[in-house]
């Protein structure tokens, strides 16, 4: 009986965990978009879209009158925690994309200008890495919340 919920959690965790290319759950195969990314901006893009896909499917579950209210509330709590993480990620990746564009534009400029752009890009990359990590954390929160709800 708990398998559908466990499978949902596995799917969500997989979507936001970079280690595996895919996961087989029963007859279903869950692809991991993040592990296909080669750059930070691709990782952030994969993470945002995977998260959106998870919420879209969670919405259908919440709209289903036969789904238990306790489960819907658990999903609601998880969404309230995870969406601000996605907002932070978007801010960080936008700053990174701008810093990279500035760095590329400065490639023919004087040494101090180039160094300044390189430093800004390094800082933006570090912030983006932290934001990607931070956006993953609420998924563990989701797992804990649903486990707590399911007893």
């Amino acid at each position: 009986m708990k398998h559908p919920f466990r499978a949902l959690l596995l799917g969500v965790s997989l979507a936001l965990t970079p280690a595996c290319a895919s996961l087989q759950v029963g007859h279903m195969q869950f692809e991991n978009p993040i592990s296909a990314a080669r750059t930070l901006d691709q990782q952030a893009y994969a993470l945002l879209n995977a998260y959106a896909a998870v919420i879209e499917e969670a919405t259908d579950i919440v709209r289903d009158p036969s789904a238990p209210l306790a489960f819907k509330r658990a999903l609601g709590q998880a969404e309230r925690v995870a969406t601000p993480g996605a907002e932070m990620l978007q801010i960080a990746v936008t700053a990174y994309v701008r810093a990279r564009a500035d760095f590329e534009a400065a490639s023919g400029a004087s040494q101090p200008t180039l160094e300044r752009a390189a430093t800004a890009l390094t800082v933006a990359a570090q912030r983006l890495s932290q934001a990607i990590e931070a956006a993953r954390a609420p998924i563990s929160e989701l797992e804990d919340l649903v486990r707590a709800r399911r007893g």
Partner: protein
Amino acid sequence: MLNLILQLQMLLAALSALLPLVPEESRERAAEIIDTVAKVLTAGNSVGANLDDLAAKLAAIRAEVEAMAAVGRHVSGEELEASMARVRTASAAFRAALETAEAGAR
């Protein structure tokens, strides 16, 4: 997995038919338990269908990211904006649906 759920639902229907044989003092509690289990099983069916959709969406995103990675293409600001707009739309729809579900339960 769905076959298992179907079998459990049939078993549950059979158990419901036996409810009158349960001692009167336990009958109400037994009926509650069966009702709860039935709801969870029905939810299991809907979650199963949603997992198929989720698997398809994740596969589509992976294919897109693989294509980007293969040619070393950077993600544009517009693409990131569109991703975040998708998150915001999904989040708003989710919260509205949850509010409706909560209102329906009152």
